[in-house]
């Protein structure tokens, strides 16, 4: 009688493309022959092993659209003094192999078609899983109301800027609202400052329309936005959150 296998298996992922998104962030495309497909919003665990056997493991959200193909993408933001992200952004080469397991997570996922309006709220690298949702939505030609609030520190830190412009310009009822928290370039037409209750009230989808809401980013950002949403009358059950942050493994 075969032993039950507990835990997702580790697969071998081969780097097939590297695409700088900003000066400090890079999209990595992997070929994973045994990939069983994923939903928008899911993530993968990557495991890196040094020659002396030292192992580091981190989770990264999938940026590529949902589907069953064997090519998947994630976008990694280089974190100062990080242990894994500087390696992935600066050192990784095409042809390199990593151990990867996934797809992981069913809570923070979205699948088309709506039918409810979709409101996505991203802080910094929290945009990555939400981008998977928007790409999935585009592939499905979903034309339901969709709105993205995306908070970045500065203009040059915005990920996927050109693609978001395209998605917003194409027919399909997507509105993209950028806000910058640390200074805006001349001629900036977007919002300024943190996503607060006033901005959400002014430009967000109203609670009466009962949107599905996904919030992703650093913990304080997510908690603050979630509080504002509740105070604006959105039902707790319609808000899904995913919090990122430093690992706090050393002090």
């Amino acid at each position: 009688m075969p032993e039950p296998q507990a835990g997702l298996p580790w697969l071998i992922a081969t780097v097939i493309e590297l695409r700088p998104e900003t000066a400090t962030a890079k999209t990595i495309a992997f070929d994973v022959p045994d990939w069983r497909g994923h939903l928008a919003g899911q993530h993968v665990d990557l495991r890196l092993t040094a020659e002396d056997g030292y192992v580091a493991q981190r989770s990264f959200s999938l940026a590529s659209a949902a589907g069953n193909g064997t090519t998947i993408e994630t976008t990694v933001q280089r974190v100062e003094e990080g242990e894994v992200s500087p390696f992935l952004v600066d050192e990784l080469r095409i042809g390199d192999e990593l151990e990867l397991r996934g797809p992981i997570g069913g809570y923070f996922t979205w699948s088309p078609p709506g039918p409810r309006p979709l409101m996505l709220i991203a802080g910094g690298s929290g945009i990555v899983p939400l981008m998977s949702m928007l790409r999935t939505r585009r592939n499905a030609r979903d034309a339901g109301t969709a709105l993205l609030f995306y908070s970045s520190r500065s203009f040059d830190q915005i990920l996927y800027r050109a693609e978001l412009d395209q998605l917003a310009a194409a027919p399909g009822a997507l509105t993209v609202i950028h806000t910058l928290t640390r200074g805006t370039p001349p001629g900036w037409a977007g919002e300024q400052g943190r996503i607060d209750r006033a901005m959400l009230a002014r430009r967000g989808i109203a609670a009466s329309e009962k949107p599905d809401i996904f919030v992703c980013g650093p913990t304080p950002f997510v908690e603050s936005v979630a509080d504002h949403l509740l105070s604006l009358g959105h039902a707790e059950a319609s808000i899904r959150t995913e919090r990122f942050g430093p690992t706090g493994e050393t002090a």
Partner: protein
Amino acid sequence: MNDDAMVLDGNAAAGALESLFAFDVTMAVVRCGDCGASGPLAELRFFGSPQAMVLRCRHCDAVNIRLLETDRAINLDLAGTARLEIRRTA
């Protein structure tokens, strides 16, 4: 000192729990064994490491779920969870 960003709520448990259950356990609603508050497992507060996870109630900080992953086994402690509610999908 900052390290790489990682998932800091119950979503972090999804990888380890992925094939232990027939359903996605991060979607399950956890009722805290201490204070009775209910919410999705994904929303619990995360402590520990990816190998040794402690998920605590957001309201009262009580330990609801603990998870240890070793080469040999995955240990799951639900003693702090009064109830785990797994809703049927449509």
